[in-house]
């Protein structure tokens, strides 16, 4: 971990030092060093963003701690793979928390060049793809593709089918 949990002064009500160490080990397993982007530790998952995550999602806190309590920290890779295979819903919770905390980190978002769900204004202006000579021309040229029905009014405000 980039910061020693013993000296960090991190909030013990969010995670104990032991749990934080488990987050570090599991984070580095799921999102390790050596890839094109920062690892979980380099993105300060265990020391910073896990706390921010649980500020936002306290509803997932107890379930996540239960998973940490059962994790095999001597063989975290094998434990993660077994969890994915045997209990996919729990694996989904685990990875949602770790990846969620990771992606709150500006370092991780910077690596992805992800600035959030950035909107783009529009004003309803005509799009050239839909103008004559655009992409829709061959679709229009082929004509209707729906199956026609034949109806006769039955005089009651509804319709009676003849085909």
């Amino acid at each position, binding site marked *: 971990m980039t910061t020693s949990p013993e000296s960090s002064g991190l909030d013990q009500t969010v995670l104990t030092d032991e749990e934080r160490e488990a987050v570090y080990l599991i984070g580095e397993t799921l999102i*390790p060093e050596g890839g094109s982007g920062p690892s979980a530790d380099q993105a300060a998952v265990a020391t910073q963003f896990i706390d921010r995550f649980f500020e936002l999602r306290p509803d997932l806190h107890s379930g996540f701690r239960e998973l940490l309590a059962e994790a095999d920290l001597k063989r975290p890779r094998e434990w993660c793979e077994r969890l994915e295979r045997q209990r996919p819903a729990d694996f989904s919770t685990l990875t949602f928390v770790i990846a969620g905390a990771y992606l709150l980190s500006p370092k991780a978002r910077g690596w992805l060049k992800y600035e959030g*769900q950035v909107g783009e204004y*529009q004003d*309803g202006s005509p799009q050239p793809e839909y103008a004559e000579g655009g992409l829709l021309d061959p679709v*229009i040229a082929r004509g*209707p*593709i729906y199956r026609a029905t034949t109806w006769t009014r039955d005089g009651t405000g509804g*319709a009676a089918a003849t085909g």
Partner: protein
Amino acid sequence: MSTDQADVVIVGAGLAGGITAATLTAAGLHVVCLEQGGWPDYDKARADFPDYEVTADRYWARDPNTRRAEADYPVDDTDSDISALMWNGVGGGTVLYSAKWHRMTPGDFRVRSHDGVADDWPLSYEDLEPYYVEAERQLGVSGLAGNPAYPAGEGPPNPPVPIRAAGRRMAKALNELGWHWWPGGNAISTRDYRMLSPCRQHGTCMSGCPEGAKASTDLTHWPAAIDRGADLRTGARVTRVLVRGDRATGVEYVDREGRLHKVEARAVIMCANGIGTPRILLLSATSEHPDGLANSSGLLGKRLMMHPFGAVAGIFDEDLATHSGSWGQQIQTMHFYESDPARGFVRGAKWGLQPTGGPLGLTRSYPWGQSPEPMWFENFHDTLASRLGHAPMWSLIAEDLPHEHNTVTLSSDLADSDGLPGARLAYTVDENSKRLMDFHVARAVESFEVAGARETIVGPHVRASGWHLMGTAVMGDDPARSVTDRFGRAHDIPNLFIFDSSTWVTSGGVNPAATQAALALWSSDAFLRQGQLSRRDLRTGAAA
């Protein structure tokens, strides 16, 4: 117990309830609407914040069993291939829907005549066409007239959402294949339109639209209805519809403080969705109606349809900016929509091309869990970077045929916060749907390959996809084979009406909001016409 009176009491303030209330109050009727939830809190729409993806599925969760808000009731889906999704609050499903907007085709109303399965509707596309036009006006729908998948006619009032790079890429591929496509229709405004603002393409339509561009009835219908005198009561959970003989006399409800109330009305209109409506009518059983109200046919709660849903994503080397865009759909295709006996199944599916959102979503289950490329461990960075912005997705809505063994009943062991039984689903995806989906998934993969995708990821039959809850109080002309008539009037109780998607005869293979909105207008219009002719009959309970 407090008691008050109204001309009409509506149960549920969603799409059908909002449209119905707005229509009836405009005609001068005194309307009370009872909604078990509250107003959506758009302060929790976090599209503009870095925590959007982390928080999106907390307040805006789609599955009531996950959300567990006080307004929710449990839905036991243990025996269902698809889990039911809904929003119990003002606006109903429109608060969370993706707002893809499609009319059903003329042939969708004639499935028995054309394909020898299911039943024909007792009304036609031509009957609904003016109501489609009006619904599109009321909801500020965007799109383009002239789609050859439909008869010629008036189109939506707003221009289509931007095609964007992904839509352009796939449109060219479909042109190369000679397949139909068309600009996406969406209940998302592309310019300032009445109460709606132009969409800013955040791609967060299903987790709280932050700028009021997506049409939901809490924005489009309820403010006007309330201005005209509609009495919308939130936190009001209907416990039963009250009857005397074959006449509904009103409803009983409990408020959030646990106090019981009664509203007497000349007519009761159910708009509580394809699960909530049969649940309440089953809860309303009496000695005279031992199997639930309006159930002499035995079909109440049967024929549940939920639209099997598949997703196929393509991953491209080029950045196609697929993290954002109206969601919604940029383009759509109905090339394989109509039946072709050579395919080994009947009916079809519509595809909508949509963005795939931010990076956290790309690590989740569907369709990404089906990828041969591992997500985690040493693959994490490469896999995630290859998807973000590079991955458009087809969402496939498959027609779901009605079967009486697909049911909504009362749960014997789950209850809501007021002690009322929850709903229990029994639902299986049938063989026709499986063959249909397999075919469509293969064609969708083909389209991505022609477009140059280097990888396709297929998520067939997504379980958490039961947005569309239809068919559990089917309409028809024969009281022995249907629950309501073509206008939503219960055969057994002539001043009890069902205006929600419970009455659907078949599901079509498109997103249902357009047809449900049109049906609410059609039914409300008939209600007013018949009411004007026979207000005395309504009072005495005789059939109008």
